[in-house]
């Protein structure tokens, strides 16, 4: 078990308006999860909790049996989790490759030749060397999202969480992104949790959890 959510409750202003009530979930490595829910259901808030961007009001989240509080949120984000945002969140003054190399440096990646490794990884997702050296603002949305995913891949974190990663992309690009996540989970053995409101994307994942009425329920899709 990689990640365990134990009796987690969260609310913003009023306890009575809690987003979740006693949530208990477990996430395994090598699997692609999706958390499905309508807008405002608290999907992104849940992502912020498991990504170490926020802490639950009650209950705790454990990473490989260790409380995130104990690990330390900054340390947790730095060493154990990679986040892919809907709006890509790349550093705007850098090229694609520099964004990745910088992230690898921040997270103390063990890769020997970081730049070459970043180029090869970008190549794998269809970003040529020429494109990789361009400022990220000159890349399309799909390309930027792929760069963001490569950044998560290169950072060596074993848990990858993505918030609506296909929200700004067309169908073709969306499917390409899902393929990358599958590769991360199945080939690299990472635990990938994708937050989405698109059922088509959710269907591609190994396990689908639907957030409805403050509870998470596993959904089974018929292929």
């Amino acid at each position, binding site marked *: 078990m990689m990640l365990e959510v134990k009796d987690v409750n969260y609310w913003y202003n009023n306890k009575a308006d809690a987003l979740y009530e006693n949530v208990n979930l477990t996430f395994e490595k090598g699997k692609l999860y999706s958390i499905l829910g309508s807008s405002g259901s608290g999907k992104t*808030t849940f992502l912020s909790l498991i990504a170490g961007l926020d802490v639950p009001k009650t209950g705790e989240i454990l990473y490989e049996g260790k409380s995130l509080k104990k690990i330390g949120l900054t340390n*947790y984000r730095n060493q154990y989790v990679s986040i892919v*945002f809907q709006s890509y969140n790349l550093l*705007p*003054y*850098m090229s694609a490759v*520099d964004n990745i190399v910088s992230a690898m*440096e921040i997270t103390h990646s063990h890769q020997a030749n970081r730049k070459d490794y970043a180029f090869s990884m970008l190549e794998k997702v269809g970003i040529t060397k020429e494109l990789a050296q361009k400022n990220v603002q000159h890349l399309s949305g799909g390309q930027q999202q792929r760069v963001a995913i490569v950044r998560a891949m290169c*950072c060596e974190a074993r848990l990858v969480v993505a918030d609506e990663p296909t929200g700004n992309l067309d169908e073709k690009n969306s499917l390409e992104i899902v393929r990358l996540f599958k590769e991360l989970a199945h080939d690299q053995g990472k635990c990938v949790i994708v937050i989405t409101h698109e059922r088509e994307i959710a269907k591609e994942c190994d396990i689908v959890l639907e957030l409805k009425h403050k509870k998470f329920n596993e959904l089974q899709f018929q292929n």
Partner: protein
Amino acid sequence: MNFIKRAFYSTKAKKGRTLLLTFVFSAILIFILAGLTIQSASLKATENAKKSMGATVTLSTNMENAMKKSSSSDSDDSSDKSDRPDPGSFSITPVDLDTVNTLAKLDNVASYSISSSTSVNAKSFDAISSEDEEEDESSSSNSSNGGNNQQGGPNGGMQMMRMSSGDITIEGTNDTATASDFTSGTAKITEGVGITEDDVDSNHAVIETNLAKANDISVGDTIKVTDSEDEDIVYKLKVVGIYKTSETADARSMRMTALNPYNAIYTSYTFANKVKGDDYKDSADSVIYTLSDPEKMDTFEKDAKKAGLDTDTYSLRTNDQVYQQMIQPLENVESFAKKIVILVSAAGTVILALIVILMIRERKYEIGVLLSLGEKRFKIIGQFFAELLAVLIVALVIAGVSGKFVGNIVGEQLLEQQATTTASTSNNQGGPGQGGPGQAGGQNLGQGRSGNFGRGSSFSNFGASSAKNAKQIEDLNITLSLKELVELGGFGLAISFLAVIIASIGVMRMQPKKILIS
């Protein structure tokens, strides 16, 4: 060191922002540099003033004690009389040469000038006098049945005559170069040589050019003078030099021939003492010690007392008035410069902090991304600091280059200010009412056979001294040194650091979730 790399990328990518920061930072540094240059220039000027002005300490008879002694001895002798001292019984001990030499050996003494003056009558030549005096003397001579030897004067109304009380002032000195009239620039050797230590016990004399011209005396000639009280005592003086004085005869000197600046003859102090009588052998009326550092004046006084100076008999009078007056504007300039540096630094810090705050607000998203990657906050702050540091280096170069010009402008202004200050100092000190009777003459009236005669040169040199120093300050070379650049770099570093720290308070509070998700 990833944050330094990020700082480099950011600085390179955001050219407009970098240029703005460079411009603002350069302006701040140029102002600070101006302040530092003024400070440095005023310090240099102060140092120069210290060296050039020196300060003087006059060793002379303690007049106050002498008066008291005179008064107490009078009242002892005649208790039935009033407490009023008898002017005739007033006696003064001249300064003995042993004391003079002991004090001359003390630390911080740059030079010393022995002064011993008296008056004689011209014999082989004629003293220069005015028409008024001629009339006065003529009537007085007639009434006293004196045999005057009047002649028409060749110099525009001046006439030469002889006086029974002495018409020539003998200014005995150890070295004309250290005599106050010469140090102040009032008198200058035009021909031959001045009196030096080598002229001790000689009959060498240096006479004024007008007196020389009027009597057709030149260097190498021998002139004769007589004792003012006994015309049978004749002294021969060999003229070794001729000097020119810029001092002009005032109303007092128009009435008394010996006070006419043209009638002053410089000799060795030993000759003056010889004329004054045996009681004055190896003595001086007064000695002016010039100190190399005016601020060590008190130390000199203490050392003199330690060396055994009899303060009941002698007094030490310090005079650093000129130095203080010269220093005052410099200190004002320095204080003003210090205020500029502090003010600009504070304002610069605030301005830069505001710019960095705005910059950070604009880069909130970037901070969120870095925080989501688990970057430590101090490294994010370090990135901003590194960016500002890069700007600082460029700004330092700009300020350093323009600082040369700033330094020149500041230097010119400083000199202008100093010139004005010096002019007013000269006017205040060299003006009417400031030059009184000289210490030597004032303190030795009624003593010895001839009676000493001062011309007030000891005080009247103040204005001239100031003028001399104004000239020295004009020669100051104000340059931008490495020290100022290092100081400037220090200020720039401190400003950058403070600005980033102030601006980073916001960064410390930022939550990545709020930035990236909301």
